[in-house]
Each structure stands twice: as C-alpha cells, then as structure tokens.
C-alpha cells in the first residue's frame, strides 16, 4: 500500500527487521541450547559438546520417575479438558443465545480469572483447597487448574455459538427435540471445530500451567512442569544434562499439542481472545 521512500525510513525498516531477527535467533538458540545439552556427553568451554549420547534420557526417565509424572500430567490434563468442556460449553450457549439482565456482570465474572495472574489468586485458592482437604492431591490440582480454563472455554465458545443460525435450533425444537437432544444431535456436531480448538488450547495451557499446580500439588500429584521447576531449582544436585533431557520431553509434549491446535486456530487468537471480549 505505502512504499518506503526516504533513506531514513528505509534504515528504520532495516532496524526493525534486524530487531525481529535478533529476537527470533535468541529464542531459537535458547531452545536449541536445551536440546543440544540433553544429547551431549560433556559440554564445557566449547561451542558444542565433546560427543553425543542419548543416555541422559534414560537417566532422566529413572531419576525423575517420569513415567509416573507423565501419567499424573495426562490424568490432570484429561480431567481439566473434559470438565472445562462440560462446564464451559453449556454456559457459553446460554450466554450466546440469551440476553438476560446481569449478563455483562457474568461476562466480567468470567473475564477476571483469565486476566488476574494465577500467582495473585493462587495462594488464597490453595488455602481454601487445603482447608477443604483438597490440597496436595490430584483433585485439588484439577480444581485449581479449572479456575482459568472454564472461563476460557466460555469466552472462546461464545462467538462460535453466535455464528450458528438460531433457526436450525428452532427447527429442531419444532420437531420436538428437548435441550438435551438439541445439544447431542444439532449443536455438538456443528460446534465440533470450535470445541476442539478451545479444548486443545486448554490442553496446551494446562500442561504449561506452572503456578496453580505448584501451589496445590503434593508429592504424588506433580505435573511435568512442576517437576521440571524443582529439578532446575536443584541444579547443583542433579546433572544438568538429565534436567535438559526432561525439558526436551516437556517441550515435545507441549509442542505436539500446540501444532495440532494451530490446525484449528490462528496463532494470534491464542492471545487476542481476552481482548475481543474485553473490548465489549
């Protein structure tokens, strides 16, 4: 649309692109450093490790009991995905189709847990969960993780539901379908892409959700990211390469789901969801 003309503008454009490239190079190098270290035998005082090996993966697997940690992680994530779908989608349907008094207030109620950082509300939440004897075990971790994900599903699903023609539902109602059958036979099939996108994003966010899991997990209910945090914190005790091997396993479990999620959503949507709703 607008062509750059003056030398000053051209220099400015070059400077901006140089900045972008510098940033991306650093991001890639940071991630690559973890991956290279996890395959290296000894890495000190040189650009690359002396030799390469895969034995750190086996030692990390045993040392951090990754089998158990991965089972816990997927149990937590699975429960969070399922429950946030079951709670979030019907609520989104009600908010998309009905304009009842007090609806803006409900929207704000759903916005707050997404906008307030988990550190701020995590400690009071953990206190309440521990008092209810739900802290330090799986159910506490699942409940805590649901706090930001239920509102997330609601807010992601509202625009998806709004774009479905209400006459389709009216037709189903005319033929005698109740709300339950309407959901099973009309809405869920039509909403599958939206639900899938929302739940995949919930999945990715829950795997990476550190703070809430950290505050509520006991020794048997740590997810992968919390185990990684403890390992990095005790770097003197554990060998760095096996910590990095665990970090690579963590990256793979996160990025596989991210790639899948990106088939359904645009990357910008991952952050702009908050804004869309906030603007109303």
């Amino acid at each position, binding site marked *: 649309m607008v062509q750059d003309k003056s030398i000053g503008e051209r220099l400015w454009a070059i400077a901006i692109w140089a900045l*972008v490239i510098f940033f*991306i190079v650093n991001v890639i190098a940071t991630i690559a450093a973890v991956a290279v270290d996890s395959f290296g035998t000894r*890495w000190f005082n040189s650009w690359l490790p002396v030799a390469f090996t895969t034995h750190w993966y086996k030692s990390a697997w045993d040392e951090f009991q990754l089998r158990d940690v991965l089972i816990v992680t997927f149990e937590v994530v699975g429960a969070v995905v399922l429950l946030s779908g079951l709670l979030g989608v019907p609520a989104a349907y*009600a908010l998309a189709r009905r304009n009842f008094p007090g609806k803006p207030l*409900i929207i704000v109620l759903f916005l707050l847990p997404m906008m307030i950082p988990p550190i701020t509300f995590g400690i*009071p*939440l953990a*206190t309440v969960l521990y008092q209810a004897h739900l802290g330090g075990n799986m159910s506490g971790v699942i409940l805590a993780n649901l706090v930001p994900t239920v509102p997330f599903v609601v807010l992601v699903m509202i625009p998806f539901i709004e774009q479905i023609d209400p006459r389709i539902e009216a037709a189903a109602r005319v033929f005698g379908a109740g709300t339950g059958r309407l959901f099973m036979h009309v809405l869920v099939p039509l909403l599958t892409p939206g639900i899938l996108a929302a739940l995949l994003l919930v999945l990715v966010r829950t795997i990476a959700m550190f703070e809430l899991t950290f505050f509520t997990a006991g020794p048997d209910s740590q997810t992968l990211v919390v185990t990684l945090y403890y390992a990095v914190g005790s770097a003197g005790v554990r060998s760095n390469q096996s910590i990095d091997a665990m970090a690579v396993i963590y990256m793979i479990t996160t990025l596989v789901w991210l790639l899948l999620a*990106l088939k359904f959503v645009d*990357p910008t949507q991952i952050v702009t969801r908050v804004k869309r709703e906030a603007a109303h």
Partner: protein
Amino acid sequence: MTDRAIGAAAPERPPLRIRLALRDLDGVTLLAVPAVLFVLALFVYPFLYGLILSFEPKAGGWLANYRKFFSEPFLYDTVWTTFRLAVPATLINVFLSIPVAMRVRRLQRRRVLTTILVVPITLGTVLIAEGLLTYLGPQGWFNRTLALFGIGQVRLVHNYMGVMLSLIMSGFPFTFLLTLSYVTGIDPSLEQAASTLGAPPRARFWHIIMPLLAQGLAINLCLSFVQTFSVFPSAVLLGAPAGETRVISIAAYQAAYEQYDYSMASAVAMIMGFAQLFVILLILAGRNLLYRGAVGGGKG
C-alpha cells in the same frame, strides 16, 4: 384467571415463568449456572476468604499483617523490586511491539512469524528460564558470540538482567501478537485517505494510527504489566531470589509454604493484587488524559 387466589394477588400479571422468559431467563439460561457457581466457589470465594483471612493475623490486631509488611524492609522492599522489573519490562515489550507490528502487518505470510512467536508463550516461563540458564551462562553461546567480537564476559544469569531478559523473551511475543491484532483491525482506508491528502508516514502514524490504537494499547499495557508484576519461576531460577530479584510473589510464597502463615501470605497476595489494580487504574486514567473521543475503526 381460574384460580381466585392467584387472580386476586396479581390480577393482570402473567405467571412467573412467562415473566422470566420474557426477560430471557428460562431453561437455557440455567445452563450457565454450573459454570457461574464454579467461578463463584473457586475464584470469588477464595479471594474474599483471603481478604478476610489477611485481617485475622496469627498475633496482634487486625492490621498486624499489613503493619508488619510495611515496617520490615525485607518485606516492603519486594514491592519496589517488583516494580523495578515489571515497569521497564512492560514498557520495552509494549513500545517495541508497535513499530514491529506496523511492519509485520504488511507482510503477506504473517503466519510463519506468528507461529514462531507463539512457541515461547506456549513453553512457559520455567522452560525459558532453564534454556536461558544455559544459553546466557558464562560458557553459553551468547557469551561465546560476544567473545568473537572481542567483548568480555557479561554476567547475565542469577541477577536482575537474567530475569529482565526472560520477561522480555516470554512477554514480548504476547504483547506483539496483541498489538498486531489491534493494528490489523484498523481500517487501511483511513490511512489511505490521509495519504491522499498528503500526510507523510510520520503524521499518519501519530494522527491516525495512535489515536485508534490508544484503547488497545492501554489494555495491552494493563495485561503485560499484570503478568510481569507476578513474575515467579524466572525470578527464582534465573535471578537472585534472596537479593536483587526478591519479588513480591517470592515473599507471598515464603509466607505460605515456608512459614505456614496463611494469614500473612493472604495479606501479601492482597497487597500484590492492589498494586496491580492501582497501576491498571493509573494506565486507564492516563489513556483518558491523552485521548478522549470515539474509538472507531477497530474491528474489536
């Protein structure tokens, strides 16, 4: 009107069910109830509980926790330490994101770039901290590259700089993607019109783009400030958690999980929340001072 009793009480009012349905309160509305109850029980209630708990200290009067926080330098210094990290990181992230987003919006294949940038957001701060420990460390690639240019070793981990760099690495992609969505939402014909009328790029930016961006910029500043203000894992792993990066979340964590003083921990969490609220109100007030008027042209 068959039942005399009901007819007498409300001669012309339709039944409650109908009246509620007219206000869009019916069976479908009830579908929102479980989610609303969940958020009330696990978000609103804990918050109020924490607020009340913070006024019920282990010892002393009802304000003892707050008095303790603001009288011990070990505690109140954390507020300053956190601001010292959060304010520069937020300003760098948000204000760098504007010129970059202005360039990137003209790009045809934006998706490649946005996909690369979404990776650090997804991986999270713990992994970024572990990566930066190796990458920025004394024997890491960054210092080796500097050495190639004849620059001596720079200490970038276990201090203020380490935490700052991790805040930029995980925060910039977020602010950038947010700014990009605002910038691409601005109708290009507005700028074309200004261009036709002879406005140079600089004038177009300051008089067309910036006023339309003000709203989004304010939200972006709020969100990234709140995120950087609650920095925790990278302040512990990449910083000096006993010294120059002892941020307020570390104080809250230690009160809860090392001293088991949940009342004090709640007080620190409340102070953290109020500090965030204070800055958000400040940003929103600043936006109103700088720009007042209709915000149109955005797709939001």
